[in-house]
């Protein structure tokens, strides 16, 4: 493996070094070192930054900011982020969770990116030294991104407002057949006043289920109420095919699992 690593104390200097051809940022390394071990020679050098801000988590006044280098294990053990623990624990086995970062998960192609699915439902903001982007815009443009993600931020959902489900074949860990995250707000009469639903494995990256979101608004979370949303769930999806499941199968079972998530 011919890889050289450069370490910088500041994100600014790491960003400058990242401009060189063949250079990639090193997060936890679970995908980038894996690719190098497999013989991917498109990357010849790696950069990283040890800036402590990248490893910080701040929770105040219902707002959360998570540094890009924070690992899934760190999120899963923080009581303040209890609502997100399920999504963080969905990423790989214990050793992977100790290494996998939030920043890296934003770039992970399907069937990976389970935590990014949660962040998409939370409508997170992605920060870089160049400014901030809504996560949906960020995900759409991520392949051409040449700048270090420094943090993700979002508003903590109300208690019980956030739901997450990962379906895999191998338990307790195993890659996703699909993952779904939803942030649901309800009016006093119990009907859904707003819904954001994000899907994993239903495209090459996490996507919003806009038609289902629209169909659930104003409805109650019971069998009849969710039926239109389940009927609309497959609108606009282009699931991946991999050794875990075909695109056809993923599309067939999506409404079943979305139904289970909405009824829990």
């Amino acid at each position, binding site marked *: *493996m*011919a*890889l*050289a*690593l450069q*370490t910088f104390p500041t994100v600014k200097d790491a960003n400058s070094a990242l401009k060189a051809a063949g250079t990639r940022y*090193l997060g*936890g*390394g*679970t995908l980038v*070192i*894996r690719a*190098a*071990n*497999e013989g991917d020679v498109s990357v010849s050098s*790696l950069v*990283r930054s040890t800036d402590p801000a990248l490893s910080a988590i701040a929770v105040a006044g219902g707002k959360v900011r998570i540094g890009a280098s924070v690992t899934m*294990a760190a999120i899963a053990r923080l009581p303040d982020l209890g609502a997100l623990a399920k999504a963080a624990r969905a990423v*790989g*086995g*214990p*050793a*992977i969770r*100790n*290494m996998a970062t939030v920043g890296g998960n934003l770039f992970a192609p399907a069937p990976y990116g389970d935590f990014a699915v949660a962040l998409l439902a939370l409508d997170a903001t992605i920060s870089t030294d160049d400014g901030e982007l809504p996560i949906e815009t960020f995900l759409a443009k991520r392949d051409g991104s040449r700048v270090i993600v420094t943090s993700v931020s979002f508003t903590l959902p109300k208690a019980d407002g956030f739901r997450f489900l990962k379906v895999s074949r191998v338990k*307790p*860990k195993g890659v996703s057949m699909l993952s779904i995250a939803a942030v649901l707000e309800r009016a006093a009469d119990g009907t859904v006043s707003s819904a954001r639903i994000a899907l994993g494995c239903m495209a090459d990256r996490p996507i919003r289920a806009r038609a289902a979101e629209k169909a659930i608004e104003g409805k109650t979370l019971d069998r009849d109420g969710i039926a239109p949303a389940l009927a609309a769930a497959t609108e606009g999806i282009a699931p991946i095919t991999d050794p875990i499941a075909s695109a056809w199968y993923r599309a067939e079972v999506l409404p079943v699992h979305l139904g289970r998530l909405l009824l829990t």
Partner: protein
Amino acid sequence: MAKVPVQFTLNGSEKAEFIDSGTTLLNALRDKIGDTSPKGGCHQGTCGACSVIIDGELRLSCLTLAETCNGTTITTTSGLSESGVLHPLQRAFLDTFATQCGFCTPGMIMAAKVLLDHTPNPSRDEVVEALSGNICRCTGYEPIIQAVLLAARANSQNAA
């Protein structure tokens, strides 16, 4: 390829090496330092055979660059026995026939050690979860799970 200095504590001994930048910890441990207890199975993060403990956390040495371990404390399975006496986990793996070809064993033991360090009396489900990143092609897992539960019991009896 640039050589970079790396210093860490490995199983209680200070190590200071010059390694090629980009060398994985697995290769540094096995080829440079001579600790062959972490095994290279897949080099892809999927088998867990290369698992080591870095600053108390289970990590995959095949996906970790050695130079990012500067100043850390690393434990591998070869550092577990003391004065020739096997660690309770090593003893339990032998006693329950949890080892066949033995290739997965060091990684399993590292994953189990981190579990028992934090959760001395784990449930069966907790053991299964802790070992979920480690693949064994021989034993069928049940003897391994039993070994970890046995070591936990032995530990709690010692503590009592």
